[in-house]
């Protein structure tokens, strides 16, 4: 059964921009926030995608055009059948977040897993303290899920950081960590969770460290090449941890030495 994807019907497709589409799929798989699925395109391949909602009757997939599989996925329309297997991974450590203040940071399509967590928080608002959200995008054109962000602005403290402002008055200019540096958020009794490009997560983590948040209070949602998604194929190993099985969400102090080890040995040139 493990390799056998099941068919589901696409309920709705929304084109967000040239590179990104949002697919709504009817399913009762009910993933935990932060878990992911393998989308299967018969004859082409598979690709891991996180669910960006927390809903027992549907999965939302924010998909960025990247390779063969996503190209084929983009051609599907409402009513078409898509094959999915999952959910995989452990997702966000919901138990540890209870009664805490949260800082959520998302960069680009890293928005997807964070969105599922925000959904969960909305449904269980009394379990959490203050919620501060940062989004990082390239420019106003690249802002994803605009309607949802509008809604969240009413409920939480939301900051959108753009690399280039281009006249957008509701947003702030600069990378997330730069904006954070200028107006530091409160970090008492706080846990930070983030997803996005590794460079972004690294600089944000350094800033949070300066603001008094230690590595054990920071969680990264990682991305690596995954093929089997249940810890057999060995692709996603970061030293001794499987991103698919042990992650994709890691406490930063757990993953940091492993990432540093790989990074330093990648820099050393051999013949």
């Amino acid at each position: 059964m493990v390799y056998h994807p099941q068919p589901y019907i696409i309920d709705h497709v929304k084109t967000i921009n040239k590179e990104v589409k949002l697919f709504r799929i009817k399913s009762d798989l009910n993933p935990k926030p932060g878990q992911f699925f393998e989308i299967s395109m018969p004859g082409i391949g598979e690709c891991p995608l996180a669910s960006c909602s927390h809903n027992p009757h549907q999965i939302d997939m924010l998909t960025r055009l990247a390779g063969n599989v996503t190209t084929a996925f983009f051609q599907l329309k409402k009513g078409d059948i898509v094959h999915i297997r999952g959910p995989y991974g452990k997702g966000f450590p919901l138990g540890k977040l209870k009664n805490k203040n949260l800082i959520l940071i998302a960069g680009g399509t890293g928005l997807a897993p964070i969105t599922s967590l925000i959904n969960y928080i909305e449904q269980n608002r009394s379990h959490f303290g203050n919620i501060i959200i940062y989004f990082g995008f390239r420019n106003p054109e690249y802002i994803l899920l605009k309607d949802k962000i509008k809604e969240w602005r009413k409920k939480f403290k939301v900051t959108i950081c753009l690399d280039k402002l281009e006249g957008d008055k509701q947003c702030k200019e600069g990378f997330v960590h730069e904006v954070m540096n200028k107006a530091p958020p409160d970090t008492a009794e706080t846990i930070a969770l983030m997803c996005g490009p590794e460079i972004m997560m690294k600089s944000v983590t350094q800033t949070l460290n300066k603001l008094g948040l230690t590595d054990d209070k920071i969680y990264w949602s990682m991305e690596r090449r995954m093929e089997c998604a249940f810890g057999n194929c060995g692709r996603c190993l970061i030293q001794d941890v499987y991103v698919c099985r042990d992650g994709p969400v890691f406490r930063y102090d757990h993953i940091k030495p492993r990432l540093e080890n790989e990074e330093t040995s990648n820099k050393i040139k051999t013949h």
Partner: protein
Amino acid sequence: MKQKKENTTEKLKIGLYGISGCAGCLLTVIYEDCFTEINELVDIKAFPLIKEDNYKGPLDYCFIEGTVCFDEDIITLKKLRKRSKYIVALGACSHVGGVPSMKNFLNKDKVMRFVYPKYNHLKSTNPTPINKHIKVDYYLPQCPPSKKEILEFVQAITSNRPFRLTEDPVCFECRKKGNPCLLNQGQLCLGPITRGGCDALCPTNDTICYGCRGPCPDANIHAFKELLKEKGYTQKELVAKMQTFAGLQFKEFEEEKSTWLEK
């Protein structure tokens, strides 16, 4: 859905041409069931090797076989480049220079005297692969190119999928097949530094790899040379092997000039 339309109503226009070469690569296309399958997927508009009446208009993909050995070849190439959206280098000669490119490393007069008694009327230049003269979009390496790879390529272009050559060395496929290592047996096999994708055809048949698919992007030529030195081979012997098919590319690779390798 856009894909499907292209498949059924209007097939891609393909041309297959040859410049100086043995026509072996073009023969591979005709060979066995390869041709019928390609013909099903694309519209073969021009194929001078087997057709008398050839289409002269614009092409989508133009496959070119052979090395540039004469100035006329360059004119032909430039004309084909203008006519086609994409140029596909077919076979080792157009990809890396092939056997003719060996002449680059030899005394030109001596070579010509060896082959022809009178050679004053010959106007050949130093043979070079086609990417030295025109922009090449895709490469289908090997001498002759593998049927499997040609089919894979045609399938990729007709279904809008990107086509990429493997970046793994020949050794990977060779070991997977369970072949005994020819290097360990004391033969000078170029497997570790050659780009794979041929299913280790030669080593499987107990013949050393001559590197016809050009250098593997991740090859450790330095360590390979050290190994051969240890085994008692001279630099000259290794260079001679490397020059059989892809001498120009191996040389460029060593000088780290080859920018097209990552393709």
